[in-house]
């Protein structure tokens, strides 16, 4: 009977160590939705460019601005969906949405992302457009790997995949669009589905 108590002690210790240092209420469903938004956004961008810009994208043209708006809307929608679904899941788990573990997660996720974002803006200002797509994938991947220490560890693998896609994209920039579709669209859906079945369904 005593050993049962000790076993309970150990599992409680592990649980507390996890709960106090990692924010694990990330919603898998929000990953799926972010992927779907990305695919829809990509389809719109593709249609805009093929239909109205004869397949090439002229910088600072009207179509270019529409594509940028499309990109921004997708990113915005994904973040909002993520926050809403994660708050819901955190509430269900009885966890606090904005505690030290989620703060740490957000800060560590944003460090590579903001550094990368500023870097991309700087080189865009210097008229170097070719590597933008690769850099976004790369920095997003680094941000995920960095954040994984403070959340579900599996995010790390999604980060590695984005980094690899980013490197491929740097190597063959001509396929940038399709690598984006793969990275931001398909991979989010695959990963979100995996997380959904691994963590959300069980409970």
């Amino acid at each position, binding site marked *: 009977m005593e*050993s049962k108590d*000790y076993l309970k*002690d150990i599992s*409680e*210790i592990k649980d507390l*160590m996890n709960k*106090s240092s990692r924010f694990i209420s990330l919603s898998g469903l929000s990953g799926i939705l972010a992927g779907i938004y990305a695919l829809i956004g990509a389809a719109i961008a593709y249609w805009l460019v093929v239909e109205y810009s004869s397949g090439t994208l002229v910088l600072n043209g009207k179509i270019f601005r529409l594509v940028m708006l499309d990109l921004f809307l997708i990113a915005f929608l994904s973040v909002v969906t993520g926050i809403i679904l994660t708050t819901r899941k955190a509430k269900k788990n009885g966890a606090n949405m904005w*505690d*030290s573990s989620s703060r740490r997660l957000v800060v560590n996720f944003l460090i590579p992302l903001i550094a990368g974002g500023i870097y991309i803006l700087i080189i865009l200002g210097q008229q170097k457009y070719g590597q933008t797509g690769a850099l976004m994938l790369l920095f997003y991947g680094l941000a995920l790997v960095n954040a994984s220490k403070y959340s579900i560890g599996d995010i790390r693998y999604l980060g590695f995949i984005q980094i690899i896609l980013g490197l491929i994209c740097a190597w063959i920039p001509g396929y940038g669009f399709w690598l984006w579709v793969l990275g931001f669209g398909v991979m989010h859906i695959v990963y979100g589905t995996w997380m959904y079945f691994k963590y959300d369904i069980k409970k």
Partner: protein
Amino acid sequence: MSIITNINKVFDHRIRLGIMSILMVNEYADFNMLKELLGATDGNLASHTKALEKAAYIKVEKQFIGRKPNTRYSTTKLGEAEFKKHINALEKLINKQ
């Protein structure tokens, strides 16, 4: 019998084990964070942190954030070593059965 001696009486309580577990993986934690995670009352938590402080297993820092007093806890080297010994002893006890 030698294993039994490694079971540390100071840790022989759910809340104290909890405090140590949280402090082992965090640089520090404040009173409210411990309270939330452990679901303990103020008085209960205070008495257990005091016991751990008395054994020199945790360090207590009192400071002000703005005007609010804030108490921060972190482990000492001794506390970390003793906690690891305690965990090893627990694991050995479990494996023995």
